């Protein structure tokens, strides 16, 4: 029993403390009460009669008290609410990519430049040095992954799917086959990095940040994008769209 319980002027508080104190009800509390009163036999009977109810209530409360404290987080649980205002700085993991879209503007076939047009079979394209992508990690250190996606023809027909990176490229000498293509990223003037795979097969470590793809606070890199086209395309569209996505992970 708290000290407030014995202070007359604060009796309402004493009631609250008494109720709260029942959660830690102990035999010592009951002895103290017995010593401070001299009940008559009738009063004693009433007290004895009320004791099972009290003990039952306390046991019930204790039984429920052993329920894990986070029960209040269940959607079926009840909760109380109040309002207050406080400023909280939330630690944020973030990444920015610029620009939002790029063109493969340097293409060739077997070493012969083809402008910005991908040719069959197995032409290659890349982004030029003037068309690089900048990826910047936010303030939280972490790791950067990169992943690719299907190339989707303008008419929504047969996609080209990614190969390499554990997916067999079915063309001659391991180049992309029919409706296949391969993508790699790399430094603006450096060698291409690992082959990209589609999102549902996971993501690749972006070695443009470091060999183990770790990225420091506010670290930024510029990368070029490279692709190798299919041996042939089922879809006759003249434009295909694909997506590259970088992910900041813990």
């Amino acid at each position, binding site marked *: 029993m708290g000290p407030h319980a014995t202070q007359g002027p604060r009796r309402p508080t004493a009631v609250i403390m008494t109720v709260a104190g029942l959660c830690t009800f102990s035999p010592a509390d009951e002895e103290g009460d017995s010593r401070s009163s001299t009940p008559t036999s009738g009063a004693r009977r009433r007290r004895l009669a009320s004791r099972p109810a009290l003990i039952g209530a306390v046991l019930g409360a204790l039984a429920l008290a052993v329920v894990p404290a986070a029960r209040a987080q269940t959607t079926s*649980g009840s909760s109380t609410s109040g309002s207050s205002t406080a400023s909280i700085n939330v630690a944020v993991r973030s990444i920015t*990519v610029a620009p939002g879209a790029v063109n493969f503007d340097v293409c060739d076939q077997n070493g012969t430049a083809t402008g910005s047009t991908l040719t069959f079979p197995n032409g290659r394209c890349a982004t030029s040095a003037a068309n690089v992508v900048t990826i910047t990690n936010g303030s939280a250190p972490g790791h950067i992954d990169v992943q690719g996606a299907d190339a989707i023809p303008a008419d929504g027909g047969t996609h080209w799917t990614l190969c390499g990176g554990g997916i067999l490229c079915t063309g001659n000498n391991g180049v992309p086959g029919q409706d296949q293509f391969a993508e790699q990223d790399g430094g603006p003037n450096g060698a291409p990095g690992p082959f990209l795979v589609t999102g549902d097969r996971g993501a690749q470590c972006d070695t443009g940040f470091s060999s183990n793809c770790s990225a420091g606070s506010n670290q930024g890199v510029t990368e070029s994008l490279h692709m190798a086209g299919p041996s042939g395309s089922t879809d006759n569209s003249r*434009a295909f769209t694909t997506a590259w996505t970088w992910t900041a992970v813990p």
Partner: protein
Amino acid sequence: MVACPGRVAAEIGTGIGASPIALAAVAHPGHTYRLPALYVVNTGTVVSTYRVRVERLSPGPGRLVPSVWVRVRRNDVPLEPKQSASVPLTLVVPASAASGAYLSDLVVGTEAPRAPSAQAILGAQAATKLMFRVSGSGGGLLGPPPMWAYPALGAALTLAGGVALQRRLGLRLRLERR
């Protein structure tokens, strides 16, 4: 691939609360829990629409979290540059869930435009860990109490408090019939 001249001068950005989303208590099969809301912020310079999904990216021990266990109550959220949102999450643990520690990631990212553009569309995603434990039993003695338990607990405490108050203050209520 046919290229168009020029490039889109835009910065695509995604931010997510870096603190892992964790359930403070052990989860029990067959129960539903409200997870802490997920903080999402547009760190780019253009309006983007953000989608939250569950995908294991982080290494480490722990069972894989089936994506259907996590319900995202507000998805495909459009955000202006620097605007943020809190995305409510609910964890639904099926009765057949295996016990043990679970680990996955909540991944939020920009959605690519659907219109074909003959370009490589670039996207930004950020992930934070999702962690919780599932108990071995299907909500036995230590399972969540039913709804009626809370008012019952309140009634029990009130009754006990009244009895204690009666004893302590010597209050008596006497009824007489005339």
